[in-house]
């Protein structure tokens, strides 16, 4: 996390970015001392996530310019999809049983370039280009895992994994149990999900919660370059089947990460910004909307504590609990669907465990229960925007 803190000194988002919602906050960032973690990268991608098309490339370009001046810092800078690849490559070097299955992961290098170059390095069998048969190649991954391999199964889009639901639920999740513990299924199922940029309903599914109830699997969502690599490595090393949710719009985030090897914990949440007034729980792309809103809130005199829960199943009730005990107010901001979403489970878990510590009911901001519309404006209103977050915090903290 040291890499994050270094950001403070360099926290100077270029004013070339047009902040959709909060023009005034741009200049105030420089003066703000304690913002941790990805604020720098937020300004890079946060804008990109509001406006279609060119701004993202602008963001990256600007980041590069900035980073040119910071070459003296330790670690190395890379994009999120490169970090995922680095993590994967390190694990494949370390353990020859780690292999990759997926559509277009080999010769094409992965539709989001996460596996670029790996097939040339490790061969066509270790980075396997599968036919378009999700249920079967996921099942094949299960069978391979049962007999000693450690497959990383890529869903080109997490929505495609709905076709593999049979294998994920019945076999990945259940076989360790129904075999009485005889067989382990150390698979990683990963892929991009979430609302992108006008990709249409089926490619923009927020379906983390569909997998929630499956006993026997762990769900994690990465959100920064740093935790993407760390979680990828942890997931591969885990003996449990892990579903790693990436987000389509976060692949081009740029950040400096340590050169040394590191593995993060699959079950822990990440403290993004400590605060006193309210606990905001979030994950994946919404982290950036929250941090965007945090800028505004800070200007208005609020002190939000932002936690990226990372582990969607199981929840890290220790980090979350400590925060609740401190602030007594909880706001959950997620991209998941409202009904039966991760936020719904989290609300229940917090109410069950920390009811006495709450001064106000838990508020959960989720995306609308609607198939993601194609039209840009409708799509924007489908997910939670920083203005809504600010409003919710103001209401909660009355």
């Amino acid at each position, binding site marked *: 996390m040291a890499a994050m803190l270094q950001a403070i000194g360099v926290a100077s988002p270029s004013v070339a970015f047009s902040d959709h919602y909060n023009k005034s906050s741009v200049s105030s960032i420089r003066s703000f001392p304690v913002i941790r973690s990805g604020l720098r990268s937020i300004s890079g991608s946060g804008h990109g996530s509001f406006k279609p098309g060119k701004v993202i490339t602008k963001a990256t370009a600007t980041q590069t310019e900035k980073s040119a001046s910071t070459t003296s810092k330790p670690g190395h800078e890379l994009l999120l999809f490169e970090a995922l690849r680095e993590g994967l490559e390190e694990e494949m070097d370390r353990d*020859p*049983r780690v*292999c990759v299955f997926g559509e277009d992961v080999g010769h094409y290098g992965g539709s989001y370039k996460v596996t670029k170059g790996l097939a040339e390095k490790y*061969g066509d*069998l*270790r980075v396997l280009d*599968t*036919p378009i*048969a999700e*249920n*079967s*190649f*996921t*099942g*094949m991954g*299960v*069978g*391979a*895992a*049962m*007999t*000693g*391999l450690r497959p990383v199964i890529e869903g080109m889009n997490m929505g495609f994994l709905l076709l593999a639901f*049979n*294998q994920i639920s*019945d*076999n990945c999740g259940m*076989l*360790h*149990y*129904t*075999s*009485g*513990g*005889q*067989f382990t*299924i*150390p698979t990683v199922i990963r892929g991009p999900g979430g609302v992108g940029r006008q990709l249409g309903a089926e490619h923009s599914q927020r379906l983390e919660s569909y997998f*929630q109830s499956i*006993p*026997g699997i*762990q769900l994690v969502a990465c959100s920064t370059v740093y935790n993407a690599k760390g979680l990828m490595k942890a997931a591969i090393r*885990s*003996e*449990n089947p892990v579903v790693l949710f990436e987000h389509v719009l976060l692949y081009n985030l740029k950040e400096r990460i340590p050169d040394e090897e590191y593995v993060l914990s*699959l*079950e*822990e949440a990440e403290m993004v910004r400590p605060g006193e007034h309210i606990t905001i729980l979030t994950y994946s792309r919404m982290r950036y909307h929250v941090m965007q809103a945090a800028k505004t809130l800070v200007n208005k005199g609020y002190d939000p504590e932002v936690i990226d829960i990372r582990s969607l*199943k*199981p*929840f*890290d*009730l*220790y*980090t979350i*609990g400590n925060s609740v005990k401190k602030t007594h107010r909880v706001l959950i901001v997620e991209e998941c669907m409202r009904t039966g979403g991760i936020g719904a489970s989290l609300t*229940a*878990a917090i109410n069950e*465990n*920390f009811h006495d510590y709450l001064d106000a009911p838990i508020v959960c901001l989720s995306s609308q229960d609607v198939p993601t519309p194609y039209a840009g404006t409708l799509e924007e209103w489908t997910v939670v925007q920083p203005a809504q977050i600010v409003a919710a915090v103001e209401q909660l903290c009355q």
Partner: protein
Amino acid sequence: MACSATAQIIQPLSINSARSVDNSDACAKILNPSSFLVSTPRINKKLFSVNKSISPFARRSATVFAVSSDVVKEKKLKSNSSLSNLLITKEEGLELYEDMYLGRAFEDMCAQMYYRGKMFGFVHLYNGQEAVSTGFIKLLKKEDCVVSTYRDHVHSLSKGVPAREVMGELFGKTTGCCRGQGGSMHMFSKEHNVLGGFAFIGEGIPVATGAAFTSKYKREVLKEDCDEVTLAFFGDGTCNNGQFFECLNMAALWKLPIVFVVENNLWAIGMSHLRATSDPQIWKKGPAFGMPGVHVDGMDVLKVREVAKEAIGRARRGEGPTLVECETYRFRGHSLADPDELRDPAEKAHYATRDPITALKKYMAENKLAAEAELKVIEKKIDELVEDAVEFADKSPVPARSQLLENVFADPRGFGIGPDGKYRCEDPKFTQGTAHV
């Protein structure tokens, strides 16, 4: 009953000789699409002309379309092999007999125990199909893998899982092969490489494909000396399922060491295969994906064994997968809860005369391989074994509450961190508690 099978031409069954088509030269035409187009329409028309009560006999006729690969064709057996060149030795014969008898006795005991309230739920018995399990699995090594469906008791027994463990599992006791957690439809054994036991049909085929993939991976990537083969057993109903076709494609594409064994017993619960399938000849679906499709009489253990030898040999040598359709029949209903009213009693009676165990017994007697007395000794031994298994299972303890959450995760840290900051699994009592998010 013809036990003198050749690997290349499977003699047509004699039921409806009038309908049998002379296709002795069909084998010469390998994988030639035009020959299929020429020969099938006649058969298909016949089928549809037997409209309402489609007798399953109808299609039991000419199945000399044993389209085999070049490799299978090369194996030449003498046609009069029964006297001078027997298919099995005495030891092999006794082994086969013992295994089939074990399967039968065990399943009959299961039925008894079920009706006495010792086991519950869905129990699917294998009576009548023993030739397929024994014919294939007895050729395997311990490291080879078997994947089955819910009708998996006998596959597990043939593979070597002790009868005690299987019975214990059926009774739901901790001494079962899966600690009582799987049940009848989920038999697993790491030691004997039984990879399940799946309740949904078709589910196990990709798992088998994965196990075969591991074998190839070990050989080609890890450079280990590995020639392990995987057998996937499934029924006729499964052959209309997407996972079947997807896996045929992948297995042939990557030349995986797997044999797809179709136990075609004509019925998927109450759905006749002929009513569910546009082209009921399942073996033909193999060549469509680039692998040999072989059809064999699944009530004859020696025929099955010959075909199995070829198919398993192919896989071991790295030549790729084979699709083997075994025509067989289940003497009991789909499960013990199935009243089995739809099947024609005449059909059942017919197949009862083709009981594989009786057939093998007759073969061994005719060829002077074993005396009646020797077989009786085996039968007695098996009966005692099964009785012992029941007793063992009966006396075994039921699982305690603490077993409830034990095997949900291989790494129990997956249960997460509790409010107190410690991993939930650090509490020794957590497995008997409630699973938390």
